[in-house]
């Protein structure tokens, strides 16, 4: 896909749409880039976490005295050392925030709620001493019965995680507690009336397993707190302003006491949007007055961070014989883990969003059970519900003997469609994606033996939010760009390209960095597919700020009114606005930089905004799967991801997002799952048994970038990072059905499950004969 390396995708632009080498690239191929665990400070201690050996238990007593007495142990913390928090839930980014729950997740209070739940932390002179200290912390537990499965957790008589949990969103409020934290209802039109006019109605139930974000870099941070309470935190995070806010609230400190620097981040996918170790490291450092480094083991990452929800769902869709969907109904039960806050909300909102439907009813339940609390994972909640809907849509198309793409096109969401969750869509690229799929070479290629082809649609909102960017014009006319959203997959390249495009300054003259929390105003995190959209919008504004200032400075030098000077976007210089303004040689930014001192001082472009108008991104994927009838093993033999990017600033990194989302979706569909024993303990907390796709599992992943520009972004950008994980689940499931003649309704479609389903179908066929 390097063919477009030199020429931009659209003739409007000279830099946008090309494929330059990323500015942080050399550091990342030489080992120079510093990630979370790569910083060491002098006098640094090692922090370690004591975790619950029980799945569900009351904590009767914690005695840390022996641990504290051990030589080399400098501090021990338990939940009592934190500021008390209020049990109140507020909207936050793509999800919700409840500080009491967050504190309980960082360190357990009077109960441990899952195997591996943190209960205390120590800081010691080295890892070996820290490990010995953990063994010396004495905790008295009263073990309680546990519940893991979502349907079992909802059943009457299930062990309760919280004796006072009354389901929110139900009127009148239930009088008895349960594990159901919240019920969500979304209604558009009248589904009962819709089903009455349907010629075909299909209703199916589905289950999906929880899956982990699987970033390769475990959580890591280094904290140092001085004697006067000024703290610095170095951390691998998707949002350092968020880390600062959360730590300040959990610790009861003023925000200005904490400076957070975002390390290079080794993957996040939503999993690094909350805090786990950071408040512990700060508190341990405050108590010991020494820097404290904490790094999570892979086992702890899988056992006690992330994952996203597993689910149990029922979807019912009705259509008329001419292929018009007249009603869609879904019941979605999502595991929240041990504390409320599953992404069932967005799951409900996204479920039917690729379609223009008159009647929709979605009911969602947020259900706690004795598992790690879920964290955001790439389009949180959407892959789950859209998988179930897209599987039923596919079966409906087959029942109506319609082409699955034509059937989707007939019902497609477009500009003006009112989504069930509320808004009317602006210009969107769902139909364009389906048309591109239909026209693709892939769609027309014949299939081999035991192979099947599936398609599925996908939708994700994308978000904007608070953003600050500064752009400094250096004395020699080069530029320093500072953004505040961590660069996880090429953000610096995209921002640099937008600044270069706007100012006509060569890329290598712009140095871009991710600033710390003291260097810029507030920035929301890298998540919600917002960083290229929001920081890009702010970068363009900051560049336009520089242009305005350049005009002012030239006007001052030339002794002209400002309106007599203009920016020439062709040459990237300021010039007199017309013949009446007199003869002055146009000045480039290099010239302007030289006169900055005598015309008013340093020139800094600045933008602080709340980015609105993040437009949704739609996708259609085509998957070819081959199923081995002897083993039940499914292999992806060909894959094409088609998605609307609005505008691809750096097409290689847009393709990379699509390909990465597809690979994660393939893992979700075929391999990945949290496996629990009857003892409630996770049995596969490692990369050997929690198997994410490896290079030999996958083919090349083809991509088609659709560009339906987002009218609210100066360059038309939409977020692209999340939608791409949604379609693979159903596309692969639908392909499996075609390959085997069996409809699958459970993820992952791992070989034992597929083989059992094939054996069952073969036995049924034999019985018929």
């Amino acid at each position, binding site marked *: 896909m390097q063919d477009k390396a030199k020429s931009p995708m659209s003739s409007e632009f000279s830099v946008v749409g090309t494929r330059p080498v990323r500015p942080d690239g050399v550091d990342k191929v*030489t080992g120079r880039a510093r990630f979370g665990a790569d910083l060491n400070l002098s006098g640094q201690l090692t922090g370690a976490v004591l975790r619950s050996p029980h799945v569900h238990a009351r904590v009767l007593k914690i005695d840390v005295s022996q641990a504290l007495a051990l030589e080399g142990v400098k501090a021990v913390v338990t939940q009592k050392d934190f500021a008390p928090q209020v049990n109140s839930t507020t909207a936050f980014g793509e999800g919700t925030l409840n500080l009491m729950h967050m504190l309980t997740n960082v360190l357990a209070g009077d109960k441990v709620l899952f195997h591996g739940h943190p209960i205390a932390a120590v800081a010691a002179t080295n890892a070996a001493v820290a490990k010995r200290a953990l063994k010396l912390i004495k905790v008295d537990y009263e073990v309680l019965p546990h519940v893991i499965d979502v349907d079992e957790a909802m059943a009457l008589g299930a062990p309760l995680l919280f004796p006072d949990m009354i389901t929110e969103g139900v009127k009148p409020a239930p009088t008895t507690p349960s594990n159901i934290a919240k019920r969500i209802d979304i209604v558009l039109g009248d589904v009962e009336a819709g089903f009455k006019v349907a010629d075909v109605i299909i209703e199916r139930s589905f289950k999906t397993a929880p899956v982990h974000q699987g970033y390769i870099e475990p959580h890591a941070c280094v904290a140092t707190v001085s004697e006067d309470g000024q703290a610095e935190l170095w951390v691998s995070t998707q949002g350092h302003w968020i880390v600062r806010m959360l730590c300040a609230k959990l610790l009861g400190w003023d925000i200005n006491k904490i400076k957070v620097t975002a390390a*290079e*981040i080794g*993957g996040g996918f939503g999993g690094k949007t909350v805090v786990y170790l950071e408040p512990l490291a700060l508190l341990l450092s405050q108590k010991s007055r020494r820097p404290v480094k904490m790094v999570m083991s892979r086992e702890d990452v899988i056992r006690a961070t992330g994952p996203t929800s597993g689910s149990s769902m029922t979807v019912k869709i009705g259509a008329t014989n001419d292929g018009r969907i007249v009603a869609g109904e879904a019941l979605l039960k999502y595991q929240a883990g041990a504390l409320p806050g599953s992404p069932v909300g967005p799951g409900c909102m996204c479920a039917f969003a690729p379609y223009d439907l008159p009647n929709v009813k979605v009911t969602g339940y947020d259900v706690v059970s004795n598992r790690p609390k879920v964290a955001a994972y790439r389009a949180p909640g959407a892959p789950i519900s859209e998988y179930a809907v897209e599987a039923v849509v596919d079966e409906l198309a087959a029942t109506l003997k319609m082409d699955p793409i034509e059937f989707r096109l007939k019902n497609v969401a477009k500009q003006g469609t009112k989504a069930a969750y509320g808004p009317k869509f602006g210009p969107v690229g769902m139909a364009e994606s389906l048309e591109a799929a239909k026209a693709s070479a892939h769609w027309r290629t014949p299939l081999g033996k035991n192979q099947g082809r599936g398609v599925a649609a996908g939708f994700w909102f994308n978000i904007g939010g608070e953003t600050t960017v500064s752009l400094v014009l250096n004395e020699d006319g080069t530029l320093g760009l500072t953004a505040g959203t961590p660069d*996880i997959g090429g953000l610096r390249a995209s921002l640099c390209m937008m600044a270069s495009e706007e100012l006509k300054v060569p890329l290598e003259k712009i140095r871009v960095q991710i600033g710390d929390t003291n260097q810029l105003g507030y920035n929301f995190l890298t998540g919600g597919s917002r960083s290229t959209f929001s920081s890009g919008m702010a970068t363009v504004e900051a560049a336009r700020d520089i242009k305005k200032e350049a005009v002012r400075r030239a006007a001052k030098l030339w002794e002209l009114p400002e309106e007599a000077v203009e920016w020439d976007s062709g040459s990237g210089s300021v010039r007199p606005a017309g013949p009446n303004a007199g003869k002055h040689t146009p000045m480039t930014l290099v010239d302007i930089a030289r006169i900055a001192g005598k015309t008013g001082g340093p020139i800094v472009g600045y933008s602080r905004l709340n980015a609105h108008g993040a437009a949704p991104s739609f996708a259609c994927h085509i998957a070819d799967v081959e199923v081995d009838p002897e083993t039940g093993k499914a292999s992806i033999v060909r894959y094409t991801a088609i998605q609307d990017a609005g505008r691809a600033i750096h097409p290689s990194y847009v393709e990379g997002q699509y390909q990465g989302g597809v690979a994660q979706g393939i893992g979700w569909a075929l391999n990945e799952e949290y496996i629990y024993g009857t003892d409630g303990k996770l049995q596969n907390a490692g990369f050997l048994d929690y198997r994410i796709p490896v290079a030999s599992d996958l083919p090349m992943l083809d991509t088609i970038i659709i560009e339906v520009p987002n009218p609210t972004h100066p360059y038309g950008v939409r977020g692209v990072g999340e939608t791409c994980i949604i379609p693979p689940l159903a596309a692969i499931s639908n392909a499996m059905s075609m390959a085997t003649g069996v409809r699958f309704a459970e993820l992952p479609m791992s070989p034992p499950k597929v083989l059992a389903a094939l054996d069952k179908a073969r036995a049924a066929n034999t019985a018929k004969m």
Partner: protein
Amino acid sequence: MAKHHVQTTINGDPIEFLCDTEETLLDVLRNQLNMTGTKEGCSTGDCGACSVTVDNRLVCSCLMLGVEANGKKIGTIEGLASGDKLHPLQQKFLEHAALQCGVCTPGFLVASKALLEKNSNPTETEVRYWLAGNLCRCTGYDKIVRAVMDAAHEIRSA
């Protein structure tokens, strides 16, 4: 117990260090020698982020003890470029956008170099199976495989 005195060669330089028996080569590289280009992703040999070469053989440094480096020649990511010149694999990873977050990249580069030294003209399948011990969660491997094949081509043509 007293620490072990180890004499080794890392990226061509003679290096001496003291380590405990249980310290892995990865611990020594990162914590004692401050060579943090080699990453820790799992410490169980499953992710390949800590890939190094030992006497030209590809090894997960988390599965090898520091004392075992005695008398051996160790190669790490820090030794891939020579002077100002990036190794063709490094250059191709950049050109193909074969990295997103970049944390697995050092391991992939070290592993790919070991492949190309054994097999200068690998097929796509050979590249995929050789790199199956290196996990990447960002890219879906497509651009990594293309970068390795392109680098192999360039090295062969040089």
